[in-house]
């Protein structure tokens, strides 16, 4: 289960409504925000494919300007993907 730490930049003039929208998405934990529109979020998903979809859904919110990844952990997935011969 991949885990990602993100800084999401939202329109500083529409922070509240952006937070409501973000909190409505499954798998998104909001850890804080500031007046410049920086939102600290942790995304957790079943696969990194789902993570990518979540990021896309976030980008679709029209008050979101960018989604910046700062940390990504996917050890479980890599382990599962071991392609052992035999």
């Amino acid at each position, binding site marked *: 289960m991949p*885990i990602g730490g993100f800084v999401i930049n939202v329109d500083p003039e529409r922070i509240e409504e952006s937070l409501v929208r973000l909190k409505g998405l499954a798998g998104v934990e909001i850890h804080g925000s500031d007046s410049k529109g920086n939102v600290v979020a942790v995304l957790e998903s079943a696969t990194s494919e789902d993570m990518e979809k979540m990021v896309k859904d976030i980008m679709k919110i029209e008050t979101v*300007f*960018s989604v*910046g990844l700062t940390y990504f952990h996917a050890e479980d997935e890599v382990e599962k993907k071991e392609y052992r011969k035999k």
Partner: protein
Amino acid sequence: MGLSRREFIKRTAALTAASYVGMNLPFTNEKTVHAADADSWHKGTCRLCGSGCRLELGVKNGRAVALRGIPESRTNKGYLCMKGMLFYKLMGNNHPERLKKPLYRARKDQPFKEISWDEALDIAAKEFAKAVKKYGNDSVAYYGSGQALTEETYIFQKVMRGGLQTNNVEGNPRLCMASAVGGYITSFGADEPIGSYTNFERASCFFIIGSNTAEAHPVLFRRIMRRKLDNRDRVKVINADPRVSPTSRIADLHLQFEPGTDLALLNAMAYVILEDKLYDEDFINNYAVFRMGKEKKQVDFKKYKEFIKDYTPEKAARTCGGNITPEKIRKAAHWFAKSEGTMSLWTMGINQRKRGVWANNLIHNLHILTGQLCKPGADSFSLTGQPNACGGVREGGGLCHILPAHRLVKKDKLRHEVERLWGIPEGRIPPKPGYHTVAMFEAVNQGKIKAIWINCTSPAQSLPNCDKYRKGMKREDVFMVVTDIFPTKTTELANLILPTAFIFEKTGVYGCTERRSQLTAKAVDAPGEAKPEVWMVREWALRLAKELKDPVIKKCVEPFLGKEPDYELPKAIWDEYTQKLTKGRDNDLRGATYEVLEKLPDGVQWPAPTKEWALKGGTDIKFVRGLDPLADKHAKNELPFQFYGPAHPDRKLWIWLRPQKGPEEMPDSQYPFYLSTGRIIDHWHTSSMTGRIKELMRANPYAYVEINPKDAEKLGIKPGDMVEVVSRRGRNVLPAKVYVGPCEGMVFVYWHDQDEDRMINRVTKDAFDPGSKEPEFKICACRIKKVSGPKPLTPFLVQLKA
């Protein structure tokens, strides 16, 4: 995974993100065992665009498992995009389709079979030697890449030029950056941007033309966006592009001009700058001259004013079409000229033009006229698409007309200097430049090139009008070696496929857009028998020396003999290149040793002649006394700026008189639409890598043709319908995306798809800029027609036929 460990990782993720924006969270992870997320962390550079984002790769039990940005890095400040987030999936044993064994077939219609490295290198050496003996030195060629490490490009070109005595050394940056090189040299006298990314935080006006920065350079775009949002009223963003893209989201002004009218738009902005007296007379008097024509004839300001009279905003608005009005041109020119610091940014929209060098010149003109250079926030800044087009190919001698460290092949003095530094006899490097890219593959078509080594790129898909050039690559009398990490459209045409190590599986330097060289050291093992290219070239050269009984070929790799290939060998190559070849040149990198690079979170910007200077990060802004050590060293007067670039003996910036010129092929009654091509955020170039990351592939499994809703309505095309795109050269059939992206009369297709029906370079045109020789990918004429309703499609990637 136990809950506590998972919680730990989540907290780490939250704390990392919070630290970027100086936010305090109500918890810490101190005193917890850090081994929970990775055994070790390794600094390196993302490979998937030219931004040069720095990150650390987390390795556990020998496998890449995690990534984190490096917040101290001056390129990305720690942020990464989605491509950057997922590329660890291609490393080591993480991906089952990696090439792991050398593969060979004598004939291209046979299946490949696995062979040993000894056999493979023997075959490569024998075939190249055979061609040289029978058809001469210019019957062999190297075609490289802006994704190869600097050490790789350098050693390949050394063996080709010094050893095999041919300048047939080219690379795919010819397809993306050559016009920017031409522009910098003819306008400023020296290749590569004057300033740095630091200008993102200092600029008050951004002029983004022919670049979808938001998708192609998302992490850099983040910095531009931050600057804009933090200074909404003070900072203006102008986006000039025939297509509305995600970059337009933050623009105050969108100039949507018709394809191929960019030169008129830029000249019209200059017109307004002259008419409204917005130019900086002192700057022009001190630092600039006016020139025109092939002979670079110097003319005076009066002549330039007369020339520009033809570009009134009213007339230009008619030429440019789209949404362009005289008022918009005036507004853009005023914002540009009057801001405290204006930064222009562009990529392929400007470079991939029949007159790409001219378009570059005209952007530079605006900066020179208004003195928007060499001061905080002011810069004329071309963005590169590949991670090492600048560092490896432009600086390392990876094009047919240039030797390492910005030396021209045709200059006897510089050529002999290189021969001396290499310790090979004078006259060994031929004085004539080799074939440029289109000419090289034309020579393959004509059977003039008999053996070619293609490294880390896929011309069978990336060349314009690629069917024409695939014919040559298919010839049985052309021996093709291809080095890569995955099967591609080009490995399909090879005789010999050599599996290479990927980034973090070998050691070497990438030089990103802002003149910054950054080291990535090996962190995980390459899969199977994949090897670093530097090892292959050394071993191949030794065999060539024997086959051709030529000790000079051996001499080219002598300094590197006996070195262990994962670290010592690339280090020795880097040392030779930086300490000997860049000494005294404008890209002096002597201070940027591996030792220094390892100490820094990011890397070093040249010029960096000493270690002390390099340890500070090098030179942020070129040509400014007190900021650039070479500006002080080469100073000829008391002026604060010293334009010492090697190509302008008069030490001036050149303002060019360049007229509007349309594309090579204009729409007509038979082919009434403009066709333009480009990238989408998830995929990179030929998708040989991003297509193999299933998250990215599923997000965008195939290419579309984007059609303006008005055109779609006229032609009865609905979203998802299958549409035929036909030019005089070829045909694609793709699903339609009806969308207010392209302007009316223009369609846009992504170029990553490997499916024969959706490979748009079968349709594009191979016209090229007569100066830079860069092809005009961005514009040709086509017609479109609905062929059916929506159809289920399957994504396609070349698989190995062994």
